[in-house]
């Protein structure tokens, strides 16, 4: 008997919590560490990933029955690369400040494993509506993940949130806005997420 198909709601929430790309699947680590210096760039990167992932999941799901399986990966990559190029053009045209603060990492969305991963694992096997919901959920989970990291780094590292100063300079932890700070915050957050997940599993086993 075929496995029971997940409901749309489950598909959506999977990306947000159970299979959160940042804290559970560890996908797209490069931007996770690089653009989380400020909440603004984290949100910007998140928005970019939402656009690319929803669109790529939609398109790949639409063409899933026409693509010969031998060349599916090259075709996915061409589609993702085009979407990222389009996103980059839009951002440079309409949000130039954000584009320059994301810099190279905007183009690097192409190689974000999350996107190719969802194309291969989900969109190529599911219908467009479910694929779009999956893409949206996953991208939202990713955005949430990096935003949380960015909140910690910007607040304690630079003493501000979205550019507004909150903590005076003498109480800031400068290392948090540096590359090493990204690993520190990320490690601590992952440990907490794991603690919650394990507690939950223990409880469900007891039940």
């Amino acid at each position, binding site marked *: 008997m075929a496995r029971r198909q997940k409901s749309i709601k489950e598909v959506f929430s999977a990306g947000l919590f159970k299979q959160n790309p940042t804290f559970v699947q560890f996908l797209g680590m490069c931007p996770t560490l690089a653009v989380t210096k400020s909440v603004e760039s984290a949100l910007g990167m998140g928005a970019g990933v939402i656009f690319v992932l929803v669109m790529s999941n939609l398109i790949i799901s639409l063409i899933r029955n026409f*693509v010969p399986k031998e*060349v599916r990966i090259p075709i996915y990559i*061409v589609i993702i690369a085009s979407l990222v190029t*389009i996103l980059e*053009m839009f951002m440079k045209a*309409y949000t130039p400040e954000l584009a320059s603060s994301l810099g190279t990492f905007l183009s690097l969305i192409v190689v974000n494993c999350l996107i190719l991963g969802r194309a291969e694992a989900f969109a190529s096997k599911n219908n467009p509506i479910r694929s779009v919901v999956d893409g949206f959920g996953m991208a939202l989970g990713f955005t949430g993940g990096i935003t949380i990291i960015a909140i910690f780094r910007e607040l304690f590292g630079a003493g501000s949130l979205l550019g507004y100063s909150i903590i005076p300079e003498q109480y800031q932890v400068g290392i948090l806005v540096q590359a090493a700070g990204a690993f520190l915050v990320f490690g601590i957050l992952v440990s907490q997420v794991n603690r919650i997940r394990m507690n939950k599993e223990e409880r469900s086993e007891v039940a």
Partner: protein
Amino acid sequence: MKHVRIIFTLTFTVLLTMVAVFQINEMTAGTIYGNQLKKLQEGLLKVAPTSYDGVLEELTGDYDLSEIDLERVYADQDKDKVVVYQAYAYGFNSAQPISYLIGIDLETNTVSGFLILENYDSDGYGQNASNPLFMNQFTGMELGPVLNGEIDGVAGATATTGGIKASLNEVIAFHNTNFGGGPVGPTDQEIREAMMEDIFPNATAFDKVTTNPANDAIINMYNVMNGTTQIGYLYEATGSGASVAGGLDMIYYVGINMDKEYTGFRMYDSQDTPGYKDFYLADSYGDSYNGVALGEEDTIAGATAGSATGAAILASVNEVMAYHVVDILGEMLDRPDPVENLNVVNAFDQVAASYVSIYADQAYDASILNVYELKDATDTVIGYIYYGKSAGYGGAIEFAIGIDTTNNTHSLIILKENESWEDAKEYASYTGDELFPDTTWLLNWQNDTVQNILDAEIDGVTGASTTTGNRERNDGLIFAIESVLKYHQTNTGGGE
């Protein structure tokens, strides 16, 4: 069949995405270019001098920029107030160069601002170059230091700041070539003229004497005029400084008025050690010549640090002075009466029946205080004693050397000195324990023919180079004693 399908799908996908990307590009390219231009325009205002509020025109098309990493050139309408360059620097991320603006205030020839427009280098490293602390250091800097890369780097951004330095070097070189006509300080000619006027403030004209003076030290000679009246002579001369690298080590101007007094001195160029030569480059040193009579150069004070430079200058000035007196004025120099010193008799091995000063009848030499003719009981000349002087480290050195009628030197004795050869012991070339007046170095000059000694070209002592002197520099004992020996050959007849 399957292959056809694969090829078709691939081609179709690529074509479709190409069309999509092309369309979006059409849509956004204008806006993106507008954004960049806006950023550039805002940047131009930031790097231009705050006093400048006019329009900047793009002049990029006027120059060939193919060889350098310059993207755009802007200047004000008259090209005399400000120039702004947009240039590229290759930092750590060489695939995406750093784009920056540098503004140059043409009125002061300093940097009016520096701004990095695009920097794709790593966060926390090369990105630090975009920090205002780094960028603001350029404001007000002179172009020379910028050209030479005298810029404080940023920790973690070594490659990036290195790339920026290299690029700035090119940009400033380009600037100097194309906009170097601006006020960059006085020209060489203006510097020289100012020095000449310092020496003769009342001059209305400096008439260059076109025939080359027959003297190695003199480069140019001017008759200094006030209206139609000649008020003096100005010499542009050269000599070897204390750092003897050979060749023309220093170039200076010295003026002599019609009363046989110096009117001033100006060092135009000296290759001597910075710190040591500074004293002699200063106007205060040059002004100390004012009013000093020819032949009294010893009264001109040098600096303690750099005494060798001072001695070298005086030696060269002495040459000019001698030329002036003998060749220009055609006379012997008015000089103090020959100095008497009874101790000179020890320079000659034999005791003579009479010691008669004959200096007053002979040509003047700056190194000679007196010349004695020695005769025996039968009134036959048996030799000469020369009483000489040289500038030492601790002040004037006086010496005497006896030469007999066969042109053999007798003793070289030091009559007055305040030297410290103790210091010279540290150096390899001086191994004796003797203090200065008894040093074995003096034996080099004794008991040999004048010609042999001159041919031997006796070296100075390392560590006591001011005392012993230096042949190329024309100073110290070497110069003074050799002057005496040559004087003996040409003037006293020396029995020849």
